[in-house]
C-alpha cells in the first residue's frame, strides 16, 4: 500500500535521506530503528507531507502523494512530545480530527468516549491536557491519532519521554491497540527492545539510508552489517583478520574468504564449559565479568588471544577470574558487511 522508491532528502547542504526504498503491507507495523539523526523522523515527515522537497517517489495505494496536501492524506502522526493542543481539553484533542472530517457533534462525542474508555482515559475527557501525567498524555496523543481512523498511522518515538517500566508495558499495549484497529503503522524508535515488541518488520537506518529491513527474528538472527549488529546490542564483533582464532573460526564456519571481513559471534550460539562437540569450536579463557540478571547471567569471557566474548548463561558455577572454556556453534558465526 505505501511504497517509497529511491527517496532522498536534504536540509540545505545536510543530506538526511539517501535513496530509501521500502513498501508497507496492509495491517503491518513497520519499525524504523536507528540512532538520533539517522533520518527516521525525516522519513515520517516526508510521508506525512510535512516536508515537501524530496526526490524519488512516495505513493499510497498506487497514488503519488507529492501533490496531496498534508491535511488530505488521512494519515495519523503521533509526535515525539505528543504536540497536544494546549488550549483544548482531553476530549477536544481526541475529537479534533473527527471535527475536520465533518463528523457530527453527537458522533464525535460517542467515538471520543468509546476511544477514551478503550485506551484507559475514561473520566478524563474534561481534563486540561497540561494536568496529565506523561503516560496519560501519550494515550491522548494516540487516541487523537486513531480517532479519525487514519489510512496509515505513524508514531515518532511515542514512548521516548516515558520511563522504562512504563515503556515496556505501553509498547505491548500500543501493538495490541494498533492491531485491534487493523491499520498499517510506521513506528519510529531508537530502542531495539521496543522495536522487537511492537514490529512485524524492522528497518534499521543509518545516516539516511535503510541498512536492513527484516522481520524482528530474522534481524536478530542474521544482522547484515556491523552497524546493525551493534545497534541491536551485540558486541562479539571481530575483524576476520584479528587473530588466528578468528580466522580459523570464520573458515570453520564456512564463511568464504572475501565475503565477510567482519564476523559476528551470535551470543545465542555460545556455551560456557560445555564439552567439545561437532559443529562447534572450543576456546579457552578467563571469566572476566558476570552480571546477575535474575533469570540469567550476562557473562564475558576473555579468550587467550585477547578476544572478549559476551553472552548469556542460565547458570553460573565459575567465579570471576576462573579459567573457563567456551564452545562456539559454527552456525552462530555470521559474516557482516561494513555497511
Amino acid at each position, binding site marked *: 500500500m505505501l511504497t517509497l522508491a529511491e527517496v532522498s532528502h536534504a536540509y540545505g547542504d545536510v543530506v538526511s535521506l539517501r535513496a530509501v526504498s521500502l513498501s508497507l503491507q496492509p495491517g503491518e507495523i513497520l519499525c524504523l530503528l536507528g540512532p538520533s539523526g539517522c533520518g527516521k523522523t525525516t522519513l515520517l515527515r516526508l510521508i*506525512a*507531507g*510535512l516536508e*515537501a*522537497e524530496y526526490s524519488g517517489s512516495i505513493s499510497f495505494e498506487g497514488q503519488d502523494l507529492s501533490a496531496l*496536501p*498534508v*491535511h*488530505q*492524506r*488521512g*494519515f*495519523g*502522526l503521533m*509526535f515525539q*512530545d505528543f*504536540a*497536544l*493542543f*494546549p*488550549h483544548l481539553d482531553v476530549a477536544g484533542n481526541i475529537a*479534533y*480530527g473527527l471535527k*475536520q*472530517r465533518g463528523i457530527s457533534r453527537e458522533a464525535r462525542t460517542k467515538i471520543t468516549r468509546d476511544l477514551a474508555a478503550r485506551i484507559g482515559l475514561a473520566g478524563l475527557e474534561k481534563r*486540561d491536557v*497540561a494536568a496529565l501525567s506523561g503516560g496519560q498524555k501519550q494515550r491522548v496523543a494516540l487516541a*487523537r*491519532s486513531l480517532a*479519525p481512523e487514519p489510512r496509515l498511522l505513524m508514531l515518532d518515538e511515542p514512548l521516548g519521554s516515558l520511563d522504562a517500566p512504563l515503556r515496556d508495558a505501553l509498547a505491548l499495549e500500543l501493538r495490541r491497540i494498533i492491531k485491534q484497529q487493523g491499520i498499517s503503522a510506521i513506528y519510529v524508535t531508537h530502542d531495539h527492545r521496543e522495536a522487537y515488541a511492537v514490529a512485524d518488520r524492522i528497518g534499521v537506518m543509518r545516516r539516511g539510508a535503510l541498512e536492513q529491513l527484516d522481520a524482528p527474528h530474522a534481524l536478530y538472527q542474521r544482522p547484515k552489517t556491523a552497524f546493525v549488529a551493534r545497534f541491536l546490542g551485540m558486541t562479539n564483533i571481530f575483524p576476520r583478520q584479528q587473530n588466528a582464532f578468528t580466522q580459523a573460526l570464520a573458515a570453520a564456519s564456512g564463511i568464504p574468504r572475501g565475503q565477510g571481513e567482519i564476523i559476528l559471534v551470535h551470543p545465542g550460539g555460545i556455551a560456557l564449559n560445555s564439552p567439545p562437540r561437532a559443529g562447534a569450536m572450543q576456546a579457552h579463557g578467563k571469566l572476566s565479568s558476570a552480571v546477575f540478571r535474575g533469570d540469567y547471567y550476562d557473562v564475558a569471557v576473555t579468550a587467550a588471544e585477547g578476544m572478549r566474548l559476551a553472552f548469556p548463561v542460565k547458570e553460573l558455577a565459575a567465579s570471576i577470574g576462573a579459567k573457563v572454556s567456551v564452545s562456539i556453534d559454527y552456525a552462530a558465526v555470521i559474516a557482516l558487511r561494513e555497511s
Partner: protein
Amino acid sequence: MLYLLPLAFLGVFYLYPLLSIFDISLRPAGTLDLSAFARLFLSDTYLRTLLFTFYQALLSTAVTLLLALPCAYIFVRYRFPGKSLLLSLATLPFVLPTVVVALAFSALLGARGLVNDLLRALFTLDYSPLQLERTLAIIIIAHVFYNFAIALRIITAYWAALGTEAEEAASCLGADWRALWRDIRLPLIRPALLSAGSLVFIFNFTSFGVVLLLGGIRFATLEVQIYYQAVNIFNLPLAAALSIAQILSMLSLMVIYTSGQKKLQLSLRRGGASARLPRRRREKLMVFSCVSLMALFLFTPLLALVARSLFAGGAISFDGYRALAERSRGSLLFIPPVAAIGNSLRFALLSMLAALPLGLISAYMIHRQQRLARLFDPLFMLPLATSAVTLGFGFIVALDEAPLNLRASVYIIPIAHTLVALPFVIRSILPSLRAIPRALGESAQVLGATPWHVFTSLDLPLLAPSLVVGATFAFTVSMGEFGASLFVAQRESVTIPVVIYRLFGHPGFAPYQQALAMCVVLMLVCAAGFLLIERLRGVGGGEF
C-alpha cells in the same frame, strides 16, 4: 521588596499627580462637586464622543491586527534577506510627530498627492478619484500606519518562540489552512494578540493629533475634548470628569481583558521554531507580497518625506541638511540640531534604562502574584490611557515641593517618557514570561541555582526577544515624544521633535525644509538605535 520599585514609581509619578489634579478640579471649594458628571451624562455631545472614540479605536485596532497577523506569520515562518532590518524599520513611523505624518499622508493620498496624480494619469481622469481627506478612513489608515509595528513586533517575538508541532499535528488530522488559523494559530498566539491588541487599542483610544489633523473638526475623541475643556475653556471639573470617564472606560476594558486571559501552558523554547527559506512558488509569492505591501504602506510615506526634504524648486538641494549643522540666526531655540540629537539620545537612553528593569519587575509581579495581577495589570496600563494634558497639570500641582519639586526639572522628561514606555515593556514581556515553563526554574533551583542565577541563565535568554521589542519601543517612545521635552526648555533639553515642532511654527521655505530634514535625521537616528538594540540581543541569541 523589589516589587515596591515600580509601585512606588507609579504611585509618585502617576497616581499622586493624577489624584491631586482631580482633587483640585472636583473639590475647588473644599466640597465635592460632581455636577460635571451630570453634564457628561445629560449631554449627548459627550456620549457621542465617547461612542465615536470607542468605535474608531476598535476599528483601527481590528484593522491593525488583521494586517499584522499574516505578516507576523510570514516573519515567523520564513527566512528572507533583510528580514530583521525590515522588522526594525517597521517601527519608524511610531517615532514621527503627527504633524509630519499628516504632511506625508497628504503628499501621498491627498487630493493632489502622488496616488491621485498616478490614478489621474493612468485613467485620464480630470478629478481626483481618491477622496480620503477628512474621512474616518484616513484616520484608520494613519492609526494602522502608527501601530502596525506594535502588533507585528509583539506577536512575532512571541510566536517565533513557539514550536510548530501543534500545527503539524492538526494538519495531519486533516486541518486545512482555515482550520489551522481558526483552531490552532489564533488560540495559541492569543496572549500576544491580546497584549498587542490592548496596547494598540489604548493608543487609538487616546489618539489626539491624528484625529485632529487628518479627521478635521467633524471627528473628536475624548482626548480632544479633554484638551479643549482643560486648556481653552479652563473648565477643570468637566475636563476631570472626562478624564475619569476615559480612564474608567479603559480600566473596565482592561479588567475584562485580564480576567478573560485563560492560562495557557505553552512552552517557549530558545530559538523556537526555525524559520526557513521560502521554497515553493506560492511561498515565495506570499513572502514577496507581504514584504512589498509592508514596504509600500510603511515606507512610501517616509520616502515622500525624504524626497520633499531634498527637493527645492525642482532641483535636489541639501540646504535643509546643511542648515542643520549651523546655529542658525543665533537664536536660542535653534541650538545646533546636532546637539538636539545628543539630547534626544540621552533621554531615550535614560528612559530605556529605567523602563526596562521597572517593566521587567512589574511583569514578574503581575505574573507571580496572580491575585494582585487583576489589580496591577490594568494599573500599569493606565498612564497610556490618561490624557497627557490632565497628567501634565497633575505634575504642576503635585510635584511642587522639595524633594519632589520636579516641575521645571529636566528629570521630568525621562520620568514622563518612562511612564509611557513602561506599558510597552510590560506588554512585550508578559506573554513570553507566562509561557516559560515553571518546571524549568524549579528544576534549576533544585539543582542549586540562586533565583538570580535562574533569572540570568534561564528566564533572560527566553525573554530576550521580547525584551528587545520592549527596549525598542521604550527608545522609540522617548525619541518621538515632545510634550514633556517642550516644557523644560533649558538648552540641554531641546530634543529632535522639539526642533521639528519649532521649525514648523514659522512661515517660510527654509524652516519647512529644515523641519523635513530634521524628520529624516530623526528617522536615521532611530534606525541606528534599533540596529544597536538588536545587537544587544547577543545575550539571548535566537531567531529574533
